[in-house]
């Protein structure tokens, strides 16, 4: 069996390992756009913080491909898929044929098409190279501007603050991480960031950047001008689906897959941030672009590709972050539409501080936010994943957590 995997992120790596485990004789080709060996993407912000160096990012040993007899093609962007011929091509090179194909190309950062966006020192933060570029002359940084209050913007701001660099964050919502937390938790996080020196401006965006070769200032939508020598753009990511023939392989925001991680075309699979599958709590197609789901999807895709039919019950958005001395864990649905039959329980102890919010429907746990005392939050994740109505003793867990 001839397997081709596009992408050496965690989904691609897990798939390759799984295929090799189940089929010692399979032929596996893996395309890697980044030339780095497989590394842990969620940890790149720790490099920015200065807590670790890039050599700590590797998730497999240097001989990993050889050990598993995987042909790896690094630094290569697959440019097209010939669905009928079962082949992929890179530019005008010879096509590479497959019996099973896994699309695990991940996602790319959204870019800002505003004047001056191509100036130096304006960075996205998605890859190890991005962070390495940011760090080249980080000691000269005087003021950084972070666009976007999502996870990336937040982690960038946090990393720069840990380096004692003044940071201004521009966000559309009233508080950071608005996709992950509610207003109360967001307020607690914002307070903690502000207390540690972050400047946050809400409801404002950048309209243009100016500078000679490097960015020097940003012109903002309220007419003000902000001096800055670093800009980090955290405007979200979009699945890397540019090369996919959308007339043949159904693509929504990401590549649509069934519960076996198979696309609309038999033999072609997708996993990780590029794939769009059922969300466990929303019960509709959704992309939860997080590391553990990518890993799990890669494993499931790998098993199916190797002939062992395994289904994937859907993804669950979840995150855990430590922000100075504030620990935040969230999962699932945390800001449901009001008056739609949701049971919402919350508890706040501002002095500790501790905050809990639980979202249930028909006694099924759909989501939660924990601020501090997060150690046993995994139990809640498993209760969401299980989707049975909670028993009395499980409701008791919510009370005492």
């Amino acid at each position: 069996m001839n397997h081709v995997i596009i992408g050496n992120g965690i989904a691609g790596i897990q798939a390759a390992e799984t295929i090799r485990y189940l089929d010692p004789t399979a032929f596996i080709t893996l395309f890697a756009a980044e030339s780095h060996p497989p590394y842990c993407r969620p940890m790149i912000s720790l490099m920015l913080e200065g807590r670790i160096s890039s050599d700590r990012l590797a998730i497999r040993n240097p001989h990993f491909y050889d050990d598993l007899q995987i042909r790896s093609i690094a630094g290569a962007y697959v440019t097209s898929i010939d669905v009928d011929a079962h082949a992929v091509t890179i530019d005008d090179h010879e096509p590479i044929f497959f019996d099973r194909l896994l699309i695990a190309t991940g996602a790319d950062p959204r870019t800002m098409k505003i004047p001056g966006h191509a100036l130096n020192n304006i960075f996205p933060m998605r890859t190890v190279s991005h962070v390495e570029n940011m760090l080249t002359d980080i000691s000269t940084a005087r003021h950084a501007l972070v666009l976007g209050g999502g996870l990336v913007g937040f982690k960038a701001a946090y990393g720069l603050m840990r380096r004692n660099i003044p940071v201004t964050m521009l966000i559309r919502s009233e508080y950071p991480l608005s996709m992950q937390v509610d207003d109360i938790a967001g307020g607690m996080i914002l307070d903690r960031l502000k207390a540690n020196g972050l400047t946050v401006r809400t409801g404002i965006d950048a309209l243009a950047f100016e500078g000679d070769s490097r960015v020097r200032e940003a012109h903002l939508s309220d007419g003000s001008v902000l001096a800055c020598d670093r800009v980090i753009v955290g405007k979200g990511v979009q699945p890397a689906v540019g090369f996919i023939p959308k007339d043949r392989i159904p693509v929504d925001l990401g590549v649509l897959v069934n519960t076996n991680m198979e696309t609309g075309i038999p033999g072609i699979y997708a996993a990780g941030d590029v794939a769009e599958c059922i969300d466990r709590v929303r019960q509709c197609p959704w992309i939860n672009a997080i590391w553990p789901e990518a890993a799990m999807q890669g494993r499931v895709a790998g098993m199916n590709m190797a002939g062992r039919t395994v289904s994937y019950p859907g993804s669950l958005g979840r995150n855990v972050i430590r922000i100075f001395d504030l620990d935040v864990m969230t999962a699932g649905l945390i800001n449901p539409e009001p008056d739609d039959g949701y049971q919402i329980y919350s508890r706040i102890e501002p002095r500790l501080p501790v905050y809990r919010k639980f979202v249930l429907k028909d006694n099924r746990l759909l989501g939660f936010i924990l601020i501090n005392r997060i150690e046993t939050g995994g139990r809640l994740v498993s209760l969401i994943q299980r989707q049975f109505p909670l028993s009395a003793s499980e409701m008791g867990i919510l009370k005492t957590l």
Partner: protein
Amino acid sequence: MKQVVVHPEKCVGCMQCMTACATAHSVSLSLFSATQEKPLPKPRIHIGASLYGRGFPNRCRHCDPAPCLLACLPGAIYRKPATATVLINPDLCINCASCAMACPFGVIRYHEDNWAPPGKTVAIKCDNCISRQAVGLVPACVEMCKSGALTFEPVAEAQNRKTREITQTIWPEPVTVATGKFDGFELLQAIKKSQHNLATAC
């Protein structure tokens, strides 16, 4: 291979396994000195309360595959097949709590520890007392448990015994399971259950 087997129906909730565990993971290995140590040694086993206040020994199951191991970003969590133990390398741990989010049993804690670099908060969980096992001792929690809620034995044996017990309870003929043996304990539990139900009923 012997492993710690939990029999929750025999847990009396005394929490003595917790102090034994913390002591076994101290520098001094003595309860009284251990309470004076910095950092304070902490237990890897945790006694939770069930609905009726009955104890439950919550301890790492050393799952295979282990969700925490799969979720660990820096690759600090690994398996030691010889003792079927999932371990955490404190040098590699980045205290990101991804394992907390992954563990369906909530058994991982985060604190400074004698076994970790000084001043570093790391993920800590049950290590099956492998250092005690290496010198022929049973895990500390098992040694301390006097009610039989924690045993150290081959899992297969425990499963066979449990199967026999269950078979005996459902077999129509000779019921040899001791009745009356645990009368006092069951009486107490019945009272506690009754108290709980009264509180929630009306």
